[in-house]
């Protein structure tokens, strides 16, 4: 029955991803994933496209391998082996969830300069706003700076300080002169649907990872208490394994649709 449940789950994920594809195909512009996902914990403003998501993908593939090894030990009714590999699998699942938490937090709270209504705003990647539109040409950006509130200008001057310009600015034009325009890439607002789909689908996948971790913890406890030894087979480990591999399988497509193309 697990297989048929997974098939129905595949249709749910498929419908989500296809709906995302439909919206994406209906837009003239869509943000480049290499621009959106370029941060790494502790690397500051460094541009490292796709680096962090590669780590997440590696963690998930790795945990799929440890799961299949647990199933293999189950076939051989080797309790210690099952316990060892289940522990690694659970650890991998938790590590993946922590990575996702960091990624979401970074996207939501990391603010980027966008040009809207002739002035510059700072917005994060949320359900209601997308800072990854098209690049604004330098002339329009300069014009927008003049209309931007000093509070945001000060923030920009702090984030992107121009080398060699120091001191306390006396007026707005001096404040603008302190901003390194080479570093600051001002964009227009991007398609709003991006946030909803990204958080919706990766969130739904993350929820599957979370429930997979819970299932695996239950299986681990049952193994440790010798339930499967008494039952004579480790069938439940195999079923939990199917679910866990499915989570990895879905990630293959989430990774494809949001990060690669």
């Amino acid at each position, binding site marked *: *029955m*697990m*297989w*048929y449940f997974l*098939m129905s789950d*595949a*249709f749910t994920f*498929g*419908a989500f991803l*296809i*709906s995302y*594809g*439909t*919206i*994406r*195909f*209906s*837009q*003239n*512009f869509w943000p480049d*994933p*290499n*621009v959106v996902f370029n941060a790494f914990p502790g690397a500051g403003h460094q541009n490292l*496209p*796709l680096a962090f998501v*590669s780590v997440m*993908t*590696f963690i998930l*593939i*790795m945990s*799929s*391998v440890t*799961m*299949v*090894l647990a199933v*293999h030990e189950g*076939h051989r009714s080797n309790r210690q082996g099952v316990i060892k590999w289940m522990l690694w699998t659970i650890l991998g699942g938790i590590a993946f969830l922590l990575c996702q938490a960091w990624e979401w937090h970074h996207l939501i709270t990391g603010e980027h300069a966008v040009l809207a209504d002739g002035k510059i705003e700072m917005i994060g990647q949320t359900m209601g706003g997308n800072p990854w539109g*098209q*690049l604004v*040409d330098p002339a329009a950006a300069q014009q927008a700076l003049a209309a931007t509130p000093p509070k945001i200008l000060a923030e920009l001057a702090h984030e992107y300080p121009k080398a060699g310009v120091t001191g306390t600015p006396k007026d707005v034009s001096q404040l603008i002169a302190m901003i390194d325009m080479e570093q600051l*890439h001002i964009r227009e607002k991007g398609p709003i649907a991006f946030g909803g789909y990204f958080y919706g689908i990766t969130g739904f996948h993350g929820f599957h990872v979370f429930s997979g971790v819970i299932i695996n913890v239950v299986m681990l406890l049952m193994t440790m208490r010798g339930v499967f030894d008494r*039952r*004579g*087979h*480790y*069938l439940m480990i*195999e079923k939990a*394994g*199917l679910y866990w*591999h*499915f989570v*990895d*399988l879905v990630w*293959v*497509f989430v*990774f*494809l649709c949001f*990060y*690669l*193309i």
Partner: protein
Amino acid sequence: MDHQHTASEVTFHHHVPGPENVKRIWKIFWVLLIITVIELGLGLFLWATDFPSWLDLAIKGVIVILSLAKAFYIVSIFMHLGDEIRNMIMTIAVPLMLFIWFIAAFLWDGSSYKNLRNKYDKHFEERTTEKKDAGKH
């Protein structure tokens, strides 16, 4: 719960796997890892270069095919579907064929909506079409 060992969906009683099974698992791990690295390389390549759009699309097509290969390995080896009896495989695989229509129809729909909008809403087209002079970053 105790009746489950009679369920036919399970490969459990087929054989007791030995070390060659573990070998196969690690082999598939390396296959998946290498495919992923190639995919990432192609993804970064798309970003670093400025190809005509048809070539971009062709590279994306290659990435999609590689992902399908990964999906095949996970389902067939890790999930052991390849070891099941043929009829069981078919009850899973045949309904999934629906995706072929599903994907084609809906992507077509999205793209047709875009074309209609560009045709009748010039403001939308002008506002959202990629500008030639704005550089890639």
